[in-house]
């Protein structure tokens, strides 16, 4: 048994990972932070170290809060390894990682997964056309490249991020033709009973109302109760038109860029590859790893923090990152139980309002059924071009879950390894078989967790390759 290289390896340099690294330094842990991106910040604080947009009003002060987090993280002096892909994790917490085409193995006593969220898949007819992108993608272009998509631009979907992107584009002077709100009309009524919890986070509520006001003032038509969204192409190559129903009428409009969004869900690729216990979260319509009060998973020594453990937002992610490290420091004997709990108390107090508002937001922005369980002709697995109708046919033919579906129709077997279709495949099969999603389950995620070249794999066994820096 080789001595571990680190007390703690953190995967992901977003808010949870950066805050966790700072806390790990404070607790005297030997810590490395691995991140797939070249720059720290995760998606929410993407490119925060450079922040290329000249006008800081465009992204707003919440984005620039990331600078404080980044500075504290950089001062911590943990072993930060950007541009590093984790493609395998062994039972003894050995990690197979790759940077610039060369692999190596790192060993750690504790692992903290802070791989954040991804946008929920938004399947609808035409969503594979060039010109259709996610709202998050548009934001990433603003943050990291100071770039805006070509018009006419339409935004469609549901959730706070969609409102934020509309406002940010408007602040940048980019014309948004329309914001098509696809949230079911009954969501407001159903969400109302969760309002007392939401009122525990008045500042977030005020931000949401402020965004709605800003969109109105910017003159962006905000159309409610939109249904039947379809994107199509008149030239066979790119998005040219949209069709949708609103107020009982079918409408059509020209569109070159359609930004879609239906909320975010935990990125479960790593936690699934680790075969951790996951639960189906009915409120958020997604999987989440089962965690204790410190973020420890069903596998001792493996922790999860931030949105990869359940969606609660960037500020909550910082706090859950700190909590996980306090739990780890306790396990490794760096703090005793009393000191750990004393240090954790204010962190938990700051975390509470972010959790209190979730039930309200989850109901208010719950996607329309059509985006969760799409119609027959809609492509679900973009890589292998498998439609919802095909999934229903194989379910009727006896396919009982997403892993069998791979053999039936290749869903989930393309380059994205099921990242973008996994949720929908489980939901469509469950719906067709009239089973709970939890009973149908999810794809088994096998290593390599990211595609890698044979050269990268072979470099692991090359005696000339150092196994650690």
């Amino acid at each position, binding site marked *: 048994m080789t001595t571990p290289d680190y007390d703690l390896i953190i995967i992901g340099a977003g808010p949870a990972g950066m805050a966790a690294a700072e806390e790990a330094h404070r607790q005297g842990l030997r810590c490395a932070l691995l991140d*797939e*991106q*070249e*720059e720290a910040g995760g*998606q929410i604080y993407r*490119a925060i170290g*450079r*922040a*290329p*947009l*000249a*006008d800081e009003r*465009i992204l707003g002060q919440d984005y620039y809060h990331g600078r404080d987090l980044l500075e504290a993280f950089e001062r911590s002096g943990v072993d930060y390894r950007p541009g590093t892909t984790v493609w395998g994790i062994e039972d003894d917490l050995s990690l197979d990682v790759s940077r610039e085409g060369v692999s190596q193995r790192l060993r750690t006593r504790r692992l903290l997964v802070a791989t954040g969220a*991804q*946008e929920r898949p938004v399947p609808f007819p035409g969503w*594979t*056309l*060039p*010109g*259709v*992108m*996610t709202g*998050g*993608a548009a934001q*990433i*272009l*603003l943050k*990291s*490249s*100071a*770039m*805006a*998509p*070509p018009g006419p631009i339409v935004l469609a979907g549901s959730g706070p991020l969609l409102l934020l992107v509309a406002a940010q584009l408007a602040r*940048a*002077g*980019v014309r948004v033709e329309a914001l098509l709100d696809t949230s079911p009309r009954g969501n407001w009524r159903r969400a109302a009973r969760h309002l007392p919890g939401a009122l525990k986070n008045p500042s977030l509520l005020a931000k949401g109302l402020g965004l709605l006001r800003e969109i109105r003032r910017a003159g962006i038509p905000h159309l409610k109760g939109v249904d039947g969204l379809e994107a199509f192409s008149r030239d*066979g*190559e*790119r998005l040219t038109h949209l069709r949708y129903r609103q107020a009982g009428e079918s409408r059509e409009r020209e569109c*070159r860029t359609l930004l879609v969004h239906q909320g975010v869900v935990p*990125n479960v690729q790593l936690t699934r590859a680790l075969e951790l216990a996951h639960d189906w979260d009915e409120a958020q319509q997604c999987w989440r790893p089962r965690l204790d009060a410190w973020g420890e998973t069903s596998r001792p020594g493996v922790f999860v923090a931030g949105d990869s453990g359940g969606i609660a937002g960037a500020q909550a992610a910082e706090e859950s990152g700190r909590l996980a490290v306090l739990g780890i420091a306790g396990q490794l004997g760096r703090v005793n139980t009393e000191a750990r709990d004393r240090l954790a108390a204010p962190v938990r107090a700051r975390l509470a309002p972010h959790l209190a508002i979730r039930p309200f937001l989850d109901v208010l922005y719950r996607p329309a059924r059509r985006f969760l369980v799409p119609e027959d002709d809609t492509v679900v697995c*973009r*890589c*292998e*071009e498998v439609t919802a109708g095909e999934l229903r046919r194989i379910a009727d033919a006896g396919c009982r879950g997403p892993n069998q579906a791979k053999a039936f129709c290749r869903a989930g077997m*393309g*380059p*994205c390894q099921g*990242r*973008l279709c996994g949720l929908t495949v489980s939901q469509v099969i469950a719906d067709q078989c009239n089973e709970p999603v939890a009973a149908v389950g999810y794809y088994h995620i096998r290593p390599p967790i990211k*595609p890698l070249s044979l050269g990268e794999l072979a470099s692991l066994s090359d005696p000339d390759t150092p196994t650690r820096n």
Partner: protein
Amino acid sequence: MPNASPFERLPNRSRAQVTVFVEDEPVEVCAHDSAAAAVLAAGLLPSRTTPADASPRAPYCLMGVCFECLIEIDGAPNQQGCMIPVRDGMRIRRQCGARDMHGEGAHDHA
């Protein structure tokens, strides 16, 4: 040949520029752009076609999830464009259909 409306650059603080070649056309981009951002700046939409049905695709999520931005970079196929920073002189090509297993780059389905 890039042919769609390019994405627009907003006023920014980026100083360092590099030149990449998108389908052999030189394009000035910021040194920190990803290869996928360079594809969008050049207006190369679609940037690939699928192996299954040869349907047109372009960068979709830009955060490493969807693999729609697979392109050929400096002769190597199947590169995840949104995860790879540009380099001066980088040569980016559309990837049509499946990668060629003989290492000659992507081949055309049509």
